[in-house]
């Protein structure tokens, strides 16, 4: 019932809600991550998402399984998009469904926090001045690099 995937096409949150909802679920929780127009004060024009695909898929599946076990068998579907995304586009969508709200809310929060910590996906940000940089959440300073081929 739960599912996780890396996708190369736009994410459709309504389809994910339909997929995971069931008559026994009185609570459905949705999280969307989208491409923001600034990062640390720099105007951003887009982001390239890349992944170590086999490991990212394995790690995402593990996280979903952990969420199910921690939060009363909550059902989760998560899709993370890979490729070049424009401002405002959805990079990640997580939907959790459960009989009650606590597990649905906790499940979504757990999956996004663990995803950001463990899943090998990287962002190459494009800035308004034409430069690009790999986002490194472990350091505030990001040296500018040329376009990655």
């Amino acid at each position, binding site marked *: 019932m739960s599912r996780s995937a890396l996708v190369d096409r736009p994410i459709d949150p309504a389809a994910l809600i339909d997929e995971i909802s069931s008559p026994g679920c009185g609570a459905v929780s949705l999280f969307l*991550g989208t491409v923001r127009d600034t990062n640390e004060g720099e105007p951003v024009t887009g982001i390239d*998402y*890349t*992944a*170590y695909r*086999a*490991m*990212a898929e*394995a*790690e995402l599946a593990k996280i979903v399984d952990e969420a199910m076990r921690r939060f009363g068998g909550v059902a989760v579907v998560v899709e*993370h998009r890979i490729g070049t995304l424009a401002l405002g586009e959805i*990079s*990640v969508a997580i939907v959790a469904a459960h009989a009650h709200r606590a597990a649905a809310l906790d499940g979504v929060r757990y999956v*996004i926090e663990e*995803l*950001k*910590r*463990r*899943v*090998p*996906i*990287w*962002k*190459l940000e494009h800035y308004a001045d034409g430069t690009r940089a*790999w*986002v*490194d*959440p*472990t*350091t505030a300073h990001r040296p500018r*690099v040329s376009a*990655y081929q």
Partner: protein
Amino acid sequence: MSVVIVQLFASYAELVGRTTITVPLTDGDRVSDLLRNLRSVPLASALPESPRVAVNHAFAAGSTRLHPGDEIALIPPVAGG
């Protein structure tokens, strides 16, 4: 002594200018040995001293023993979401 091909991604691939790097390895070596041997590879000089290592699609501790055929990768700080 044999060698192992280690996969590189994102900023690490860019720092080295390649998506793989060949590292000397001896039978029975662990991840910590791999990281030590990595420092003797000139191409790897641009990489951080102790990157996270993944073996067969899972993060691996320094004590993890490596086997022939393992898929090994260096994982830059992740930034999904």
